[in-house]
């Protein structure tokens, strides 16, 4: 009975608080990318990234994602590929160690998901990128103060001058790259 009451109180609090800020659990959260090279899909993950998430599904006008990504932490499980990826022809981590995704314009989609129309800055270039994501508060998630944000967006690598010149050949390295994320969040009060 006490537990039920506590649950209800928490639910009420959770729905009343607007412009909620969230803390990301770095152990369980992932941010990665998937590309295709020599006819085969490969995925990579960033070991280090710092998301600053403000999101309330009932008030999208206050939502804001600001994610800083340490590009040198990219890992595609292939030493040679990672070296090339971090080198001057691609991420150029020496001159541009950090990428940043900043979104302040959010839309609710018909399928229940959301779209964050933001800008991705990478290699000194800033381009519009939309992150489509699902938001799963869930009853236990709210009690535990946890939410899951799962999203994906499509990026053209040449928009950011990732692998130009000879590297541009789309038959060897596809131009389309998808970025995916899964964040486990707890509220900051």
């Amino acid at each position, binding site marked *: 009975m006490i537990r039920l009451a506590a649950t209800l109180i928490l639910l009420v609090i959770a729905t009343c608080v607007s412009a909620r800020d969230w803390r990301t659990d770095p152990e369980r959260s992932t941010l990665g990318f998937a590309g295709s*090279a*020599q*006819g*085969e899909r*490969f995925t990579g993950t960033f070991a280090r990234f710092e998301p600053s998430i403000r999101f309330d599904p009932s008030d999208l006008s206050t939502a804001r994602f600001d994610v800083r990504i340490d590009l040198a932490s990219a890992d*595609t*499980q*292939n*030493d*040679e*590929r990672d*070296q*090339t990826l971090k*080198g001057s022809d691609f991420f150029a981590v020496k001159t541009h160690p950090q990428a940043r995704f900043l979104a302040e314009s959010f839309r609710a989609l018909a399928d229940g998901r959301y779209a964050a129309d933001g800008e991705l800055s990478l290699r000194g270039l800033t381009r519009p990128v939309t992150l489509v994501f699902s938001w799963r508060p869930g009853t236990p998630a709210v009690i535990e103060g946890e939410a899951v944000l799962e999203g994906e967006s499509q990026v053209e690598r040449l928009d950011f001058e990732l692998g130009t*010149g*000879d*590297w541009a*050949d789309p*038959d*060897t390295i596809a131009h389309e790259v998808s970025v995916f994320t899964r964040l486990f969040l707890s509220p900051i009060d």
Partner: protein
Amino acid sequence: MKVRNDSTGWGLPSIALHWLSVLLILSIAVIGLYMTEMPNSMLKLKTYALHKSLGLTILGLTALRLAWRLYAGAPDPVPNTARWQRRAASASHALMYATLILLPLSGWAYNSASNFALQWFGLINLPRLVPADPVLKPLALTVHNGLFWALMALVLIHASAALWHHLGRRDATLVRMLPVLVHDPKSPDPTAETRQ
């Protein structure tokens, strides 16, 4: 020109497969030695891709050669070949076939352990032989390099023996592996005609 091998000579398929293998092995060896020294670039990636495609081709071709040899047989050694020479020839041939199978497989294993895609001339993607494995990776490379130098040693022995048969013993061993017209099967020792 005959198709099947008989006791005195090789048929056209065996001869063609032999010389095609020679051409491919020399090409892939030169590419393999050169590519590791290349600076990182798309050209390097494509050169490695070519090396892998040629290696897969050699693997398939060697399987085909072995199958054909089992079906079509092989000629006897030329008459008056000493027993130790027959044995040495059989052993080096067996070792070359084994190397031509294991060398591409070790390269494939190295490629898989490194977590690289494997394509045959950009047409077909092949699966991983082993999962990505940082421990197996240097081991597979060592085996690949070791087998390469072993093959080079065997090729040297093989070619030297063929030249010794041709120039020293002046028998038909080398000539009967040469393509069309050079070898007349009715003459068991074609070099005899040029001899005084």
